[in-house]
């Protein structure tokens, strides 16, 4: 299994020893050695069913497989990189915030409730399952990890949500009232509520 190293806070460095890693298309900034890049399709899993799902949901993270011998550096739009380890659990993530992930991890697309409609990210979210490492992107500055416990549910802005990990129940909160109709809203009409126990990662910038 590869080590995901950070070179500074915005560049991810991965050594390949004949194995492979999947990364967001076009995110390679440099490499040494003998590495090939191949389109790995979308992050919605494999097969025809996934392809159909992809078409239907519009949740499209386009990934490439990097394989061979050498070192590869990845970065995207000067966003900060966050490395998350998965040990058999599931990570729910905004597809466009994925930088790279271990090849063994499974990706799928899951229904995310009405949340997607407001955040413009589509109604579906990408799930990553298995054993391995995921590198996520945070726009506008370093990401923040917020802990959720049964006593303390968490409410976040859908536009700054990056990913969530753990036993979490996600609900969509609307606070639309007559104020919104007359243009007197606080700008926070839609939010995401997490109950249970786990970790939610957010970024300082709103999409």
């Amino acid at each position, binding site marked *: 299994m590869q080590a995901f190293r950070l070179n500074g806070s915005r*560049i991810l460095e991965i050594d390949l020893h004949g194995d492979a890693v999947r990364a967001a*298309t076009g995110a390679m*900034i*440099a490499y040494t*050695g003998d590495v090939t890049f191949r389109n790995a399709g979308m992050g919605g899993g494999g097969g025809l069913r996934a392809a159909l799902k992809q078409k239907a949901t519009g949740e499209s993270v386009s990934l*490439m*497989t990097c394989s061979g011998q050498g070192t590869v*550096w990845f970065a995207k739009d*000067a966003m900060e990189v966050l490395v998350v380890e998965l040990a058999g659990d599931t990570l729910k993530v905004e597809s466009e915030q994925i930088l790279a992930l271990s090849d063994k991890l499974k990706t799928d697309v899951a229904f995310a409730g009405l949340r997607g409609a407001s955040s413009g990210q589509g109604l579906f979210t990408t799930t990553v399952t298995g054993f391995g490492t995921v590198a996520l992107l945070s726009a506008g500055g370093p990401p923040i990890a917020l802990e959720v416990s049964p006593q303390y549910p968490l409410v976040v802005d859908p536009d700054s949500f990056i990913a969530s990990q753990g036993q979490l129940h996600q609900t969509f909160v609307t606070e639309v009232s007559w104020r919104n109709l007359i243009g007197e809203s606080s700008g926070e009409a839609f939010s995401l509520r997490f109950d249970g126990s786990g970790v939610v990662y957010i970024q300082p910038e709103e999409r």
Partner: protein
Amino acid sequence: MGIFEQVNGKVVAVPVSPGREILARRGAMLAYTGNVTFSPVHMGPGGAGGMVGRMLQGEQVAMMVAQGQGTVHYGYRGLYITLIDVDGSGPLSVEADRLVAHEAALQSTVVFLGSQGGIRGAVRGAVSGQGLFTTQLHGHGSAAVLSHGGTIAIPVNGMRPVAVDPQAYVAHVGQVTVDVSASVGWRDAVGRGSGEAIQLKLTGNGTVYVQASEQKL
């Protein structure tokens, strides 16, 4: 050895004294102390050839020289600044846009890439959108170079050619040759490529600087 001092990721400070002038991009001065004057440099040290190059380049960046006695702070549009020392073992090649300041002791020339690699050099310029000209700094001294999101330095040596995404390439220093390598397959033609079809291949001895983003300045 460099006389530039990094104040933070985006601002550098440099002392100026008679005989140690600093050339900088016009408008990049943030603050200064002491008795320093700034005057425009019309024709760079490249001489007539340089001027022709500049005219053809079309993206030539107007420079100014800081003279006198004092300390000047430079920064530009909130972009990250990387300090690079040139120690005489090889020139620093950098796109004119990215050069924010350098010691006047460094000789700057505009190099037509075509002379470096024939038609391939020209292709490289067209592909990476860098124009066909690049600025080279020779001699001993240091330079401040702009990047989006900061840079990492990757060593290049004989056994270890480095491939770089043209959009993420910032600069290189040393005895390094740059070549464009295209591995365009049928997948790219049908829009199923990996997005990494065109790369710059660097060989030789030196260092290449790569930024954390695929955005040009």
